[in-house]
């Protein structure tokens, strides 16, 4: 009502009333919500951008800006990411774990999702629920229990890379299952039935129809698994045997507690950029693969929903 009154010439309103009217904007965009959204984006992104900026600082300071340099990436012959063996190993270890995690967790997760989605009857509800456990279990609890398992029960697996991969796979599978199962439900049974109707055995229907239709979800879940594995600190730390099995997050954590150099910012930036690249590649692949479906425009939402779980 205010906005209508406002348009009448000759009426004067206080500044506060005018701001209120502008915010309310009854028939247009909800400006108040837009403001909140932008405030949040700024709040969350500015610290990251500052950290990235100081990775390019020419001096050893992480707080006082001097000039642009790539010294902390490769220029410094002792302390750059490239020349400091601990940082380099951490980077290699992180990508190794994330890659192995994707290669192991995605196939297992897809199979589990297929089984769970098509399993009707006793026990299916409970199993579906149990699948969500790793998503809600505090990571610290899972890390401790896995450490106990590897030090007391399966003592042939020592802490280190193998244990770390097993730990990452354990919590990654749930993400794959949830993403792939969501896609399975939205696909429905009709394509499988059509394939069977046209003479395809269940196995052929799976390989020729279901898997191609699931590809977007599989790609998306691979990107998610990579991102959460590279990001993981707690489980990597519990199952690390130190030295070369420390990952980037562990390195960053211990470095910041000692005397941090901008090389820490540099390695964090490398992680940020590579994770962003992987996730964007996953998103683009999802967009491309689902472009034939008339649900375009929802792809971002679908893909995004995969992340909301974490």
């Amino acid at each position, binding site marked *: 009502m205010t906005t209508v009154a406002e348009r009448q010439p000759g009426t004067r309103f206080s500044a506060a009333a005018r701001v209120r009217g502008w915010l309310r904007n009854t028939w247009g965009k909800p400006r108040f919500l837009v403001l909140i959204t932008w405030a949040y984006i700024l709040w969350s992104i500015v610290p990251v951008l500052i950290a990235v900026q100081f990775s390019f600082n020419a001096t050893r300071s992480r707080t006082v800006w001097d000039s642009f340099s790539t010294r902390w990436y490769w220029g410094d012959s002792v302390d750059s990411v490239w020349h400091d063996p601990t940082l380099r190993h951490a980077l290699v270890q992180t990508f190794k774990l994330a890659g192995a995690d994707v290669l192991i967790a995605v196939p297992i997760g897809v199979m589990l999702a297929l089984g769970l989605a098509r399993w009707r009857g006793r026990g299916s509800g409970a199993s579906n629920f149990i699948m969500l456990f790793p998503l809600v279990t505090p990571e610290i609890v899972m890390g401790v229990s896995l450490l106990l398992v590897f030090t007391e029960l399966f003592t042939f697996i020592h802490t280190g890379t193998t244990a770390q991969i097993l730990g990452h796979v354990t919590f990654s599978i749930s993400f794959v299952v949830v993403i792939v199962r969501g896609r399975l439900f939205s696909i429905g049974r*009709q394509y499988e039935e059509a394939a*069977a109707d*046209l003479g395809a055995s269940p196995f052929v229907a799976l390989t020729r129809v279901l898997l191609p239709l699931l590809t977007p979800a599989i790609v998306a879940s691979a990107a998610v698994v990579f991102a959460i594995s590279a990001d993981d600190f707690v489980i990597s730390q519990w199952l690390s045997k130190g030295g070369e099995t420390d990952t980037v997050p562990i390195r960053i954590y211990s470095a910041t507690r000692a005397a941090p150099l901008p090389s820490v910012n540099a390695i964090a930036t490398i992680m940020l950029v590579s994770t962003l690249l992987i996730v964007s590649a996953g998103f683009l692949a999802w967009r491309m693969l689902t472009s034939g479906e008339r649900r375009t425009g929802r792809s971002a939402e679908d893909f995004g929903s995969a992340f909301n779980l974490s």
Partner: protein
Amino acid sequence: MARGEIELSKLRKEFADVTAVDGIDLHVPGGEFFSLLGPSGCGKTTTLRMIAGFEQPTSGQILLDGSDVAYTPPHHRNVNTVFQNYALFPHLNVFDNIAFGLRRAKRPKKEIRERVGQALELVQLSGYERRKSSQLSGGQQQRVALARALVLNPAVLLLDEPLGALDAKLRKVLQIELKALQQEIGITFLYVTHDQEEALTMSDRLAVMNGGHVEQVGAPQDVYEDPETLFVADFLGVSNLMDAHVVSSGPSACKVAVDGYELETRGTDLDLRGAARIVIRPERVGLEEHGAPSGPNRIPGMVERLVYVGSAVQVIVRAATGESLQALVQNTGQGIPWEQGTPVQVHLPSDAVRVLPAEKRAGESE
């Protein structure tokens, strides 16, 4: 020509808490266009899905050309399905969709190309091979689904409300095309629909289903003109139903009393006594001017409402018996001599009135 004969015997399907199909028997000779007609939830789609093999019957037999296929998995049955939403594979183009079945049957490449070409010609979509299904209109998708099923030369084609998603005009066109196609290739079409007009215009014979049972089987005329149950009379088109009391019944004619007015009706083979219902189609109800010479089967009434529907005018008349009757008067351009409140005389021709046993309504006790 006997290929494609379907025989269902005591076919039953129970889901966790409902009986979807309650022991139906049906015989469809090869080469017939047969429809299963009924409201949603009547079991028609479940019946079709059992014939296709997507559901396993709880009990009963499905004979396809004499052999029981009730426990044969769908990919080993010589039937193909056109799905309600077509279920065209979105990751394949038109050619690969149609070739899907032929490739599973491991036909040589050259034969696949020829047969897909022929199938596309049959549905008038030659030249669309490279399109994706998302680039096709609803009607075109429907044709691709049809070609994909027909290219395998099935003995029986199952169609699950294939025109349901299309607009009214296109539906009319495709109804005629489908019927012509069926006559051209001569295989059995089993057509599931809830649209009574669709079933009447296309079928050689049809079965009206309700609550998991078959209510009546027959040619469209028989089912429309001679409904055997109140449900059929009511479901197929608009019917006027009136409570009546049977005075005498016989195979050539019956006499009933409706609230003091005695009416002569068509004969019935059923032995009817006491309370019954009479049925008459709106297009058979005659309206005469008030004061016209009285005669048999005439009841006075008053025009309650006129509804203009274009090709005709629906006249709702409150009869002296208290019932409201619908009469359909063809629009001849002359206008209607009545308006709301005009007293008229309703003529119910004896050959248009049928007596049916009064069914207990659901919930009424014995």
